[in-house]
């Protein structure tokens, strides 16, 4: 089989990339979306809560509703997709091997590939939690799947570790389904999720939030019978003697997301240790020519609306690549970061000097900061020349931020062959 554009992952990133590619002129039949679940939509399908689409559509949708807007377009454009299909490998020559009950063992050669595999949750094993290994320990996402898709309750008396949005949403969801959520513990001194979710998911249900605290031990032989919760110091080290046994039958972990880059690694694509995703240029093209990445596989996003916006552009870039508009330029310009910046995407630039704006008129730069700022000054410089400078209030390390590079700025970066992003207290 041969396809112009093969998209690995039929979640929000993959769907938007497919739509972007089609709308930029790639024939529907020259696109293939490979999705491992039974249906398109990715993790959105298990998100029955609302709050999706506020930025992109200006309305409040559930996860399923948000996904269906894009799935309907895929159907309308008649873009082919295969479900229950798992990609086993992507080769350097862009041959993708996958298996599915529908097509069996299949090889497809692609001109351009979009990596849109999403992310997974950090597990208990990545934490130094002492104790036994009984049943009753769930990641927030798998608890959500059991409740919302399968219709089963993971437990009755629940402690949640981690105050990310999924953890907060599950606190409310499990309460509504009749479980008692005893507390939400967060190692940091502030919540990781949004203020809105703290209000609507915890405060409205009188679920106590314990900051600066973590689970240090799991108790129980067969089923969890309790967890020991300890206070932590400013370095997140548990403070001896502060342990308190909380009787519960379930521990739900919402302790972070990790991009799923197994295929990326095997293909020999360069990864960024800070994002755990691929190193990309302004088209979100990876170190392997014609292979693009978008969505949570590239870097973990706060809201799906940003994933969509990013991925539509990647679809456009794919179309440009297939048409031969993207001329690979051997000298990649590194996008440096200053101390206050945790990471930036893209990490490199690779402009065609004569046609900087041939595919995208402007370039979105996504970044996270390494600490909280009340008033932050964000600047982008090239050879010391200030290209962009904005002041933003209340910049939190738990949020993703973005600024936009214009064609003019890109021209300077291309001329000077360097760029740097900095964040300082204003």
């Amino acid at each position, binding site marked *: 089989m041969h396809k112009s554009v093969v998209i690995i992952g039929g979640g929000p990133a993959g769907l938007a990339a497919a739509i972007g590619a089609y709308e930029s002129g790639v024939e529907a039949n020259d696109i293939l979306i490979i999705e491992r679940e039974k249906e398109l939509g990715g993790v959105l399908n298990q998100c029955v809560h609302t709050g999706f689409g506020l930025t992109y559509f200006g309305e409040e949708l559930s996860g399923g509703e948000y996904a269906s807007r894009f799935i309907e377009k895929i159907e309308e454009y008649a873009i082919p997709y295969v479900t229950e299909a798992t990609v*086993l490998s992507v080769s350097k020559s862009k041959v993708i091997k996958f298996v599915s009950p529908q097509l069996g063992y299949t090889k497809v050669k692609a001109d351009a590939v979009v990596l849109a595999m999403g992310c*997974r949750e950090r*597990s208990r094993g990545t934490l130094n939690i002492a104790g036994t*290994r009984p049943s009753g320990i*769930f*990641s927030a996402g798998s608890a959500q799947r059991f409740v919302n*898709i399968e219709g*089963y309750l993971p437990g009755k008396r629940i402690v949640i570790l981690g105050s990310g949005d999924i953890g907060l949403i599950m606190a409310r969801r499990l309460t509504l389904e009749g479980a008692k959520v005893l507390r939400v513990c967060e190692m940091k001194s502030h919540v990781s999720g949004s203020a809105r979710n703290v209000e609507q998911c915890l405060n409205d249900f009188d679920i106590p939030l314990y900051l600066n605290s973590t689970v240090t031990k799991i108790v129980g032989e067969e*089923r969890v019978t309790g967890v020991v919760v300890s206070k932590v110091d400013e370095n997140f080290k548990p403070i001896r003697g502060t342990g308190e046994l909380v009787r519960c039958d379930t521990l739900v972990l919402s302790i972070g997301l990790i991009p799923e880059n197994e295929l990326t690694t095997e293909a020999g694509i360069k990864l960024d240790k800070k994002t755990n995703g691929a190193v990309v240029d302004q088209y979100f093209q990876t170190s392997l020519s014609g292979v693009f990445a978008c969505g949570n596989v590239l870097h973990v996003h706060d809201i799906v609306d940003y994933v969509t916006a990013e991925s539509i552009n990647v679809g456009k870039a794919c179309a440009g690549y297939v048409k031969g508009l993207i001329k690979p330029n051997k000298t990649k310009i590194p996008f440096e970061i200053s101390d206050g910046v945790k990471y930036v995407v893209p990490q490199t630039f690779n402009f065609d000097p004569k046609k900087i704006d041939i595919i995208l008129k402007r370039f979105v730069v996504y970044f996270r900061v390494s600490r909280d700022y009340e008033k932050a000054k964000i600047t982008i410089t090239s050879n010391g020349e200030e290209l962009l400078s904005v002041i933003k209030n209340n910049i939190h390390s738990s949020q993703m931020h973005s600024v936009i590079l214009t064609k003019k700025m890109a021209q300077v970066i291309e001329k000077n062959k360097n760029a740097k992003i900095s964040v300082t207290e204003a």
Partner: protein
Amino acid sequence: MFYDVVIIGAGISGAMCAYKLSKYKLNIAVLEAGIDVAAGSTRANSAIIHAGYDAKEGTLKAKLNVKGCEMMQELTDALGVHYKNCGSLVVGFDDYDREQIEILKKRGETNGVKGLRILDKRELHKMEPNVSPSAVCALFAPTAGIVCPYDLAFALSENAATNGAEFYFNFKVSSIEKTDNGYAVSDGNDTVCGKYIISATGIYCDEIAKMIDDPLPFEIIPRRGEYMLLDKAEGKTTQRTLFVTPNENGKGILVTPTADGNIIVGPNANVVDEKGDTSVTIEGLEEISEGARRLVPNINLGAMITSFAGVRPTPSTRDFYIQESEKCKNFIHVAGIESPGLASSPAIGDYVVDILKKCGLKLVEKPDYIPTRSKEGNFKLFYDMTDKERKAAIEKNPLYAKVVCRCENITEGDVVNAIHRPIPAYTSDMVKRRTRSGMGRCQGGFCNTKVAEIIARELGIPVDQVQKFGKNSNILCGKTK
């Protein structure tokens, strides 16, 4: 039911005895206190096939270790078990270590270990560039290897079951009575009788010995060892098993690849009050982290995907004790099987068969003996298959095209197969150990719902009755509102 041989314990030693004996025309029963094969020390250990230079010259341990290690390749090939003859290095950091390494080499040679060689600093770092720069020498043992210990025990048990051995699980022996023609072994509810009894009961071998009023002439000390398992992405940290130079406290903390491509770090050795205490401690994890960094300073312990612990039965004499009870005829103790019990196991099996022969057991080979795990052969997981085999497997059974565990590429075909193998899996942990589903970096985050559904479907039970490992370990607590 009366059996020729009743084996108590389905750990590596019991499973090996069942495997060796099932070649012959014998009625064999295996009584296991746990719900599955490999429920005790066999489940959680370093998984190393030691070359045989550790045990003192002339001990039973030395003899069986060297012999068992030599037998491992052929055995694992026959049963389709992951085994890798990767070799091992005992790393020395100073002159004292160098002396000890010389002693080990001499001891190994006396024990019959082949190919032992002392490496200088340069050669060591060429072989394993990540070993600490302050290491000065190493003992290289090319015959050492790594195996998946519970898969080896499954393979042995499945072969025995295929050849007619009967397995009784949840059979916690509480009394053993002498009868006219042998022994009656009971768990309080059921009784199984046999002429010959083999007690291969790991940390409980002292308690079993007491039941026949023949206490072991030494103490069994339960010592817990904690481990950290690292992501496969770190698999290249070392190609060979790395030990520090042993001291009076044992072999110390090691760093080794596993047969499945992860890196394992551990164990410490702490005496525990309770034999079944396999919990991990923060102090323990810190202890093994420190030990690992001594061998490999740049080891990425942040890539830990899980931690676990096992309890091993350390005999106060530090040697294996495998012999017929002096008081009770035809009752064989297989006791004190601590490290290198796994490496020695094939030789332990043969040794026990010889004892039984001497006791008068008649061994007549079965004409219809099946040398593999099942009549259809060994079980190959999708993840172990070549492209061609994968294609064929999917054509035969489309469930092999449905990947359940994305970290390890385990398919629904593998899971369904595990549920219906000669020793069937009916909990999520049993499926996990047979297929590796949930053993990857997400630790079941994605596949646990799917595995639970498949188990429920295949067994015809509601999903909320699916257990993690039996008893009251149900994964879910009923339906939502």
